[in-house]
């Protein structure tokens, strides 16, 4: 806990510094700037441009800075996992045409690029517009920096039915996930034609981004379900410490990391050969699997430490694999305990999810802890909103989840009640100003 507290304190200090220093920068740049009008939400604190160079905090630690929106791949996948998330799955409203959907994707891209910079969703959006009109930006992020906001879009298998003429463009691997043993999926928490994942270091920034895009989509898309995540459970960069899930464990220590592009190409990014012909739009993209994993929190909490450790196959305090001594020690599945049994139980999470047990399969985990209040019986409605990115969900997630669903000791303490699969297109081309999400798919 003290580590987390220290982290939080450091973060607060960093952002205050950023605001102070950039406040000075902005003042120098525009000595005559009017006090009333502020087109960006938080002066230059948000930007990678005007004021960033004067920031006191080093780049890697600055929680207020902007993450580039454009690039070869979409942001929000290998971007070092931000602390907060708002995820929304949407269905296209019946009767919508392909042209209308394309227009929405353009409008979304434009508003998103602005918001990721820390700007309002539209120029003068909060209070610069006609007083008789509803403001174009809902305003709750005014004054907040970009906060590392990333928005990632994905298209679900259902989008490729006969509504929009996209059937022939559906990549072969974009088909619904099969049922797994123990699933208790609820339709109202599953599926969707499209998904938007907003991640940021400030929850208000993430919620603002989703809220404004949903509003822009009124009449064209309808929210199917959404999920808030309050704390990252994965590290996607070697610069990040492995966080804990709500069971108190460091899970996903062996996650794929941004610093290993070769492994990312092999396990995360869809390769041109994977998507020949009309499905080529997905090259450079990735598949997103989302699973809402409800944890039986109270049951877990009264379980002995020994059983908890054996369930994960790691020790709780430092996260080292059983039989090892440090978190990043490679698990030694051959080691035996004093009782002559494998030190790492064969039904433990770390054993079953390890690449060595899955023919080398790996995925990029990027999930979030969630709490949706209590369940009506006074029990926490909480768990892990599992998000993972991969090159082919059916070749990677499905065998992994089959193995876990069949044997994982953790199943006594969890239940999967939501599930979805989306194909995330590649990034927005920095050299094509008019580029938009899904351009290669829709044009």
């Amino acid at each position: 806990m003290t580590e987390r507290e220290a982290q939080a304190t450091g973060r607060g200090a960093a952002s205050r510094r950023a605001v102070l220093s950039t406040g000075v920068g902005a003042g120098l740049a525009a000595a005559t700037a009017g006090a009333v009008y502020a087109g960006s939400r938080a002066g230059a604190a948000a930007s990678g441009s005007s004021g960033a160079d004067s920031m006191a905090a080093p780049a890697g630690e600055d929680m207020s800075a902007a993450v580039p929106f454009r690039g070869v791949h979409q942001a929000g996948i290998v971007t070092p996992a931000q602390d907060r998330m708002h995820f929304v799955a949407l269905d296209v409203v019946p009767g919508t045409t392909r042209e209308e959907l394309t227009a929405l994707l353009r409008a979304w891209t434009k508003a998103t690029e602005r918001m990721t910079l820390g700007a309002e969703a539209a120029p003068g959006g909060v209070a610069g517009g006609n007083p008789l009109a509803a403001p174009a930006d809902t305003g709750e992020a005014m004054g907040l920096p970009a906060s590392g906001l990333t928005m990632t879009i994905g298209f679900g298998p259902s989008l490729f039915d006969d509504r929009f003429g996209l059937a022939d463009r559906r990549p072969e691997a974009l088909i619904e996930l099969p049922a797994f043993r123990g699933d208790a999926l609820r339709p109202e928490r599953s599926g969707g034609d499209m998904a938007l994942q907003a991640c940021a270091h400030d929850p208000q920034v993430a919620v603002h981004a989703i809220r404004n895009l949903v509003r822009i989509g009124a009449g064209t898309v309808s929210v199917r379900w959404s999920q808030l995540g309050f704390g990252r459970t994965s590290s996607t960069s070697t610069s990040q410490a492995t966080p804990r899930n709500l069971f108190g464990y460091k899970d996903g220590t062996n996650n794929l990391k941004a610093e290993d592009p070769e492994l990312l190409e092999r396990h995360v990014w869809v390769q041109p050969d994977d998507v020949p012909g009309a499905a080529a739009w997905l090259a450079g993209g990735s598949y997103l699997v989302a699973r809402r994993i409800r944890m039986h929190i109270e049951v877990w909490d009264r379980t002995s430490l020994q059983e908890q450790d054996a369930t994960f196959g790691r020790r709780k305090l430092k996260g080292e694999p059983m039989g090892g001594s440090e978190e990043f020690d490679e698990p030694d599945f051959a080691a035996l305990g004093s009782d002559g049994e494998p030190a790492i139980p064969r039904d433990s999470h770390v054993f079953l999810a390890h690449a060595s047990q899955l023919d080398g399969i790996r995925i990029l985990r990027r999930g979030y802890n969630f709490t949706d209040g209590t369940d009506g019986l006074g029990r926490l409605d909480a768990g892990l909103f599992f998000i993972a990115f991969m090159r082919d969900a059916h070749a990677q997630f499905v065998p992994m989840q089959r193995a876990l669903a069949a044997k994982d000791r953790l199943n006594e303490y969890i239940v999967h009640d939501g599930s979805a699969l989306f194909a995330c297109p590649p990034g927005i081309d920095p050299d094509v100003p008019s580029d938009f999400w899904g351009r290669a798919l829709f044009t």
Partner: protein
Amino acid sequence: MRTRATTVLLAPLLVVALGACTQAKSAGGSAITVDASDDACTMSTSTTTTGDREFRITNTGTKVTEFYVLTEDGMVVSEVENLTPGMTRSLHVTLKRPGAYKGNCKPGMVGDGIDAALAVTGDTITTDTDPKLEAAAGEYQAWVSAQADELLIRTAEFVAAVKAKDVAQAKSLYAVARAPWERIEPVAESFGDLDPAIDGREDVIAEGLEFTGFHRLEKDLWVDGLQADSDAIADRLLADVTTIVEKSKAADLDGLKIANGAKELLDEMATGKITGEEDRYSHTDLHDFAANWEGSKKGMEVLKPILTDRNQLLVADYNQAATTLDGLIAAQREGEGYRLYTDVPQAEIKALSDALTAVGEQVGRVGAALATQ
């Protein structure tokens, strides 16, 4: 179902942006040039006169920039976005009133940007009141009046059935009597204290009021059976309705009030009707839902001739969203009326809610469009 892609373009109140990036249009005098660099915003002049003006902005910096024309207190008169380095674009603006304005360049698209003062002199450009607006107000007023007459007639029939202890007849007239009320609710509601007496729900008791009106009789008819004071409640309902009908017929309406009323009716549907809380004993909520919608549509219908002149795209967007909602409501018809709300599947309620949101976003643009000429 057209997207809101177009709606982020705000129609300024005082001025009209004639469009960015169009071919040069003869504005009064030559264009004001703007040199927008990474650290300066230099305009070729700091004074101009009211009327149509063209700004020609060149991004001489290294970052993507924006250029705004702002009023002194920071309201956006017009703007042009996404000027990449080296790009020149035109912005046509009608400056309607003299005063202090400012240009504002925003390198990198964030931050407060860099101001350049612009003093505007000359006469205010006035526009005559649109005669179509007066015609619209007149037409709406006449319709409200007719609905008010209908409300009085139907309420009298309902009250008569209650007093005759004819429960079946009273039940069949309940939703019918409420329909004209729901159509003109914003007008009627503007007469304050009578609204809770006529349309209050049981929770008005918490505010120290007596539970009277339509919903008290609804509870008697569907749940408790007629009570000793049901007749008195019925008499009072008719008296209150008579008063509100007189007031509604004399209401002074204008374009903006009609637009606000059209929005309020939708808001009422979204908060009170979609939840099934309005008619919690009879479950005739869809009757009220449809009547609110008819009232909102009527307001938009009378305003359309003006809106068509000013923002054709808004009318097209609205029409499309309205057609969707019309279809969904029509699908709920059953016999003379509508299905009981308790029989409507959740998925269909969600579809109604989505369609309502889409219409509401369009109607929310109407006030500003009316104020723009």
